[in-house]
């Protein structure tokens, strides 16, 4: 690991000032320290933002959650209000990593964790995301767990965060402090598709510090569901964050009712959490039955461009959407 200077700024102004010339922010370090050990990241300075005053979860009178960037993943998942009002968010956090890692990991760091593509993590291999212009060996090589939607010839990596998938479905937004003040970025515009610049994971500008995530109230049953290669402690092959509200009678055989409102996002399928706008359009106002759910999932996945070894993700995502919507209908 390359030597670096460690700084712990007392306030946000100092943090922004210190973040220059090869510096990186440090949250819990559970991703960054790992990548430094692998020689993938080589900061000259670490600016520790984990003790800045962004460690609280505020609940506004209207039910909006304002989650500080330094809140630990485990504290977010344990929060009574979050568990009652936004269960899919607590579930998504709990399905990520292990108890040990969640105790260290922060909300800001979770959003900005890097991809788990194995070529990206291996500093001896070419990779457009790590070293622009060197190529993408994953496209022809090991890609069974990589993207089926929105990828480019330059990069087929997926975003690994579970929490971010729930936040995408929840219409969250990200509060940022930059050198020229504060701004708020809608969640769907926070992460990027790779295009010709896969080295940029997000639309943050150099030096930008994430200070909080805002989550509007949710008046629907919700659920996060994740499929992985082992039962626990593994990244998602495909995951889904869903919330549905139906109105009208549900007859005993489970049919009936109309979808009044719905939120849907997929994880493990793209360079960013994938908000399923097309599926939502099919669902809203339509009968809350299995046929509609299937039609919605298929409408979304029409855009899929699977690679040689990850075509299985298309039916997996479809079935996961349908199953989760059926379960939620029972709860609604």
């Amino acid at each position, binding site marked *: *690991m*390359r*030597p*670096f*200077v*460690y700084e*712990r700024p007392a306030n946000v102004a100092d943090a922004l000032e210190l973040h220059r010339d090869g510096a990186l922010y*440090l949250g*819990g*370090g*559970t991703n960054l*320290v*790992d990548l*430094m*050990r692998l*020689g993938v990241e*080589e900061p000259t300075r*670490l600016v*520790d933002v*984990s003790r800045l005053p962004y460690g609280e979860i505020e609940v506004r009178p209207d039910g909006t959650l304002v989650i500080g960037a330094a809140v630990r993943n*485990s504290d977010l*998942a*344990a929060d*009574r209000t979050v*568990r*009652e009002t936004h*269960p899919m968010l*607590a*579930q998504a956090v*709990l*399905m990520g*990593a*292990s*108890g*040990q*890692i969640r*105790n*260290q990991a922060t909300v800001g760091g979770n959003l900005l964790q890097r991809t788990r593509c194995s070529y990206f993590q291996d500093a001896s291999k070419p990779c457009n995301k790590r070293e622009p212009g060197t190529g993408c060996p994953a496209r022809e090589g090991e890609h069974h767990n990589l993207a089926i939607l929105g990828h480019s010839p330059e990069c087929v990596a997926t975003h690994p965060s579970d929490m971010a998938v729930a936040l995408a479905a929840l219409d969250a937004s990200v509060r940022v402090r930059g050198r020229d003040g504060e701004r708020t970025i809608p969640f769907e515009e926070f992460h990027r598709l790779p295009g010709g610049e896969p080295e940029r994971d997000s639309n943050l500008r150099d030096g930008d510090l994430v200070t909080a995530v805002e989550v509007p109230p949710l008046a629907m049953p919700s659920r996060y569901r994740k499929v992985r290669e082992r*039962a*626990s*402690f593994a990244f998602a092959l495909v995951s889904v964050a869903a919330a549905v509200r139906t109105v009208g009678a549900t007859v005993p055989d489970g049919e009936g009712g109309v979808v009044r409102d719905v939120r849907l996002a997929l994880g493990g399928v793209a360079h960013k959490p994938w908000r399923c706008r097309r599926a939502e359009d099919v669902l809203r106002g339509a009968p809350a039955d299995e046929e509609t759910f299937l039609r919605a999932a298929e409408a979304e996945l029409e855009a899929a461009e699977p690679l040689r070894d990850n075509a299985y993700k298309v039916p997996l995502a479809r079935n996961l959407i349908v199953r989760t919507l059926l379960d939620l209908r029972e709860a609604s």
Partner: protein
Amino acid sequence: MDSEARPVHADVTLTVNGSERRLRVDTRSSLLDVLRETLGLTGSKKGCDHGQCGACTVLLDGRRANACLALAVAHDGAEVVTVEGLAADGRLSAVQEAFVENDAFQCGYCTPGQLCSATAMLDEARAGWPSAVTADVSRDPFLDDAEIRERMSGNLCRCGAYVGIVAAVRDVAGETNRAARDPGAVAERIKEASRT
């Protein structure tokens, strides 16, 4: 790699198993390396060094954490408890006793991490934290075997001593579970939490 770059050092103070230690560390040192190499506390093991196996688990400010991913310099002022600090006054802790009674280890390599993880995991459940297998996250959890397995999944055991580990944790969880089943006790706990 970079021959120009020289090591950078920093002063840190850690309270380790109750005693204060002032140290000068390379900023690159993990808490695990400081514990093992500088302080000679070799109970915490280095398995993967990447957060994947849990062999290095310690209690960091009362919570379980992977010491391999923690930079020592970032934890200046922290309280650390390692497996060496779990026993008190010459007596094993309840979790340690239960591991012995349930044959919960073979080679013992993962055991220090398992013990620290189990100790903190029981506190997490006592505080009402849900897990990925808790059916209704808005409720307090009950530690059945599925809950114990999920909560201990950050600790891998190459010997496959899992059956004994789950049994040991289940033994110690008895009291926590009685509290979870007793609504009076839960109300009392919430009252207590709101006082502090």
